[in-house]
């Protein structure tokens, strides 16, 4: 009878210790059967990981709310879900490059039409420029040059405005997605032991996401639109030397982007690496306490915790992969769109240079700069979020 009482008391003690442990991951042990947890990850059933996350109080579905319909469609098409880790490993570099190429081909259609239109204007303008001796009247050819620039403005303004708006939308939707995604990813990382790293990620990435949402609507589009307006005015009337302002803005954007990226990546890396050591210490201490202070089943509980932690590692990897893939899918179309536009403007710039059309050249140069600035901002935003997520995924691996 005494033996039965002792065993009951030990089981009760083990139960209370498990409930009282500081790591939310251990709470999952209550619901995830040991038999299920120790089986190999490949044999886990559908929804197993999202169920596990739900047991930890993390709504994995919440991170999909910020996805754009296009990104959602692509992720669904590739069956990229938290519960399907095998789909992630099936993606090859060939698939990625094929996707980029297909998107690039789609992005090329409009810019190529734009190029044809611009080339027609450049050719007609070159007709006048080339026959300078036939039309020696400078004032007539100058007015004709202004008309050519005005026609070019009419041709390119819609496409450039659309590209800027598309980029701003991508920043906005990327930021909105991250605001839903970061708590989920940070929660899972914290549950698997990386409390300090997750806290650093949560604070910094949420800051970047919120800043991106604010900047896209209130600063980037208006500032670049004003720059474009100045660029147009300068091209129409070379008397206004506004390129100095746009050059200064270009330098400021490049400096600010570089500075923010350096500080962000540096701070996150340092905090994550230092935090990983503290987290590893905490996890090891908890395992030591569990295996030494719980009699009889302490070792089994510590092993179970390690198994659950590994399962959570897979969940963290899956959620991290989805986050990176979502940002990539959301930012890629505007990036490719701008790349195609820049290629087209590069070709038009060469043609304008070839025929000595200074007005059109100034317009193309100024517009090209605006596109470059949008491109830098988008790439900076995407790289910061992707690197931050990747750092947390990597740091989480080292916490044992």
């Amino acid at each position, binding site marked *: 009878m005494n033996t039965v009482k002792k065993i009951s008391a030990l089981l009760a003690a083990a139960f209370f210790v498990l409930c009282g442990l500081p790591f939310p991951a251990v709470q999952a042990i209550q619901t995830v059967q040991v038999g299920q947890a120790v089986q190999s990850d490949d044999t886990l059933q559908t929804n197993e990981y999202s169920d596990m996350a739900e047991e930890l109080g993390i709504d994995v579905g919440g991170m999909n709310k910020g996805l754009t319909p296009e990104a959602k469609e692509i992720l669904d098409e590739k069956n990229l879900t938290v519960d399907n880790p095998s789909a992630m490993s099936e993606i090859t570099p060939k698939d990625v490059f094929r996707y980029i190429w297909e998107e690039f081909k789609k992005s090329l259609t409009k810019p*190529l*039409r*734009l190029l*044809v*239109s611009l080339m*027609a*204007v450049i*050719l*007609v303008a070159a*007709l*006048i420029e080339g026959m300078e001796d*036939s*039309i*020696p*009247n400078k*004032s*007539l*050819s100058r*007015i*004709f040059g*202004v*008309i*050519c620039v*005005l*026609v070019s*403005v*009419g*041709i390119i*303004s819609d496409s450039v*405005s659309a590209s800027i708006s598309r980029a701003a939308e991508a920043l906005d939707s990327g930021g909105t997605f991250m605001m839903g995604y970061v708590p989920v990813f940070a929660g899972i990382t914290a549950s698997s032991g990386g409390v300090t790293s997750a806290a650093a990620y949560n604070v910094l990435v949420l800051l970047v996401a919120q800043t991106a949402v604010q900047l896209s609507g209130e600063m980037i589009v208006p500032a670049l*639109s*004003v720059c*474009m*307006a100045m660029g*147009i*005015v300068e091209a*129409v009337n070379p008397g206004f030397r506004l390129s100095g302002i746009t050059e200064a803005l270009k330098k400021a954007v490049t400096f600010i982007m570089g500075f923010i990226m350096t500080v962000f990546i540096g701070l996150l890396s340092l905090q994550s690496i230092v935090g990983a050591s503290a987290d590893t210490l905490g996890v090891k201490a908890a395992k030591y306490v569990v295996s030494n202070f719980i009699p009889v089943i302490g070792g089994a509980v510590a092993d179970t915790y390690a198994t659950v932690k590994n399962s959570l590692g897979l969940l963290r990897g899956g959620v991290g992969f989805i986050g990176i893939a979502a940002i990539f899918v959301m930012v890629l179309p505007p990036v490719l769109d701008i790349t195609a536009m820049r290629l087209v403007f590069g070709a038009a710039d060469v043609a304008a240079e070839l025929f000595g059309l200074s007005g059109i050249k100034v317009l193309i140069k100024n517009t090209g700069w605006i596109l470059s600035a949008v491109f830098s901002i988008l790439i900076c935003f995407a790289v910061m979020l992707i690197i931050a997520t990747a750092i947390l995924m990597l740091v989480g691996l080292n916490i044992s």
Partner: protein
Amino acid sequence: MINIVSVAGICIIAAVLCKLFSSAGSEYALYIKLAAAAGLMSALILFISPVIGTVRSIYERAGAEEEYLTILFKALGICYITQFACDICRDSGENALAVQAELAGKLSLLVLALPLFDSLSEIVSGLI
């Protein structure tokens, strides 16, 4: 395809005739010059028509607004015609008329470009 030999021949013959008739009376030389220049200009317009058609069809295929191209070609035509009128006037010693023709050409270009200035102001105000 324009026959450059014919064009060169017409130009040389017209120039020789102008020289011959200049001693008889300067007005005859002017008539010959005018007739030759008008004929050559018509030939050039006929020559350039298929080129304009090709550019227009390329432009249409690109899905761009044809209005812009029409304005460009009209402006090009105005430039040539104005220059032609100015040169004829100056050759006949009528500088005042040449200046008037030039002014008319500039005004025509400005009137032609007015819708473009309108759309420019719309674009710039939309951007700001």
